[in-house]
């Protein structure tokens, strides 16, 4: 089950997937989750959909990868600038110790450099207030864990073209 802010049409999925395969398009996804098993799974799901994957185990390392740790100086080093320019989508778990997925979402959406990148929030819990506040803060979609291959195919079609 998923909740999304935009309506989706399943008929577009198969033609979209075909286009992606023919063009050898490999979107780069940053997946953030404190749970090791879930990180392995999301990585596999994404790789099965021909995505390049970077995983992070918390919000702070995600921000570090994107070069957003220092809020006042977001033009950090070349490597970080290059990292964030390649990321086509961010998938983050909601419940994480320290910085939650919601807080990470806010930081990304409020940064001048990364606010256009689609962020998808995932959670094992279906809490309407949680879903709404993520969507309001600019998350493209909120999905329930565990994710399936079909969920990832859908994400690729909608947000990574």
């Amino acid at each position, binding site marked *: 089950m998923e909740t999304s802010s935009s309506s989706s049409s399943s008929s577009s999925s198969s033609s979209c997937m075909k286009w992606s395969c023919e063009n050898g398009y490999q979107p780069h996804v940053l997946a953030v989750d404190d749970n090791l098993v879930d990180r392995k799974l999301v990585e596999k799901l994404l790789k099965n959909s021909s995505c390049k994957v970077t995983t992070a185990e918390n919000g702070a390392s995600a921000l570090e990868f994107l070069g957003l740790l220092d809020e006042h100086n977001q033009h950090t080093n070349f490597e970080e600038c290059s990292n964030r320019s390649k990321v086509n989508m961010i998938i983050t778990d909601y419940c994480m110790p320290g910085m939650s997925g919601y807080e990470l979402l806010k930081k990304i959406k409020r940064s001048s450099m990364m606010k256009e990148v689609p962020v998808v929030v995932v959670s094992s819990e279906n809490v309407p207030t949680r879903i709404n506040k993520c969507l309001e803060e600019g998350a493209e979609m909120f999905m329930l864990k*565990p994710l399936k291959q079909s969920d990832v195919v859908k994400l690729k079609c909608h947000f990574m073209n």
Partner: protein
Amino acid sequence: MEVGLMRRQWIQYIEGLIHEGTLDGQYLQLLQLQDESNPTFVSEVVTLFFEDTEELLNKLRIAISQPPVDFKKIDDHVHQLKGSSSSIGALRVKNACIDFRSACEQQSPDWCSRCLQQVEQEFYGVKEKLSYLYAQLEKRILNAGGSIPADLSF
């Protein structure tokens, strides 16, 4: 024994685990992620789950035995375990975690102890059953040059 028979026995074994509620449909989803390029993906992830859970159970035993009991910390650990057990399809472990979280909410040390015992029981149960699956039933299929079934329709 020929590979076809090994595969059929594997299927029957998995069917049995699903039927008795040890595993749920999520495990079948994981099997669909496995292929020739990575024929042991599922057993690798599940092994990670076993290792991760052993650590969590240790932390839980320590947290429960040290008064004053930190129910928030215990709940955090159980939440983690509920997540990972759900992700690999270990249904009974997940359900035991759901109960455990209620016990944390009620802040009952006795109930929490009982829940921990239940979680341990379910975890060691599924660990034993899946370890057998990987070490015996899957190993012989792979050694015989066969592949582990991916698409099971029950």
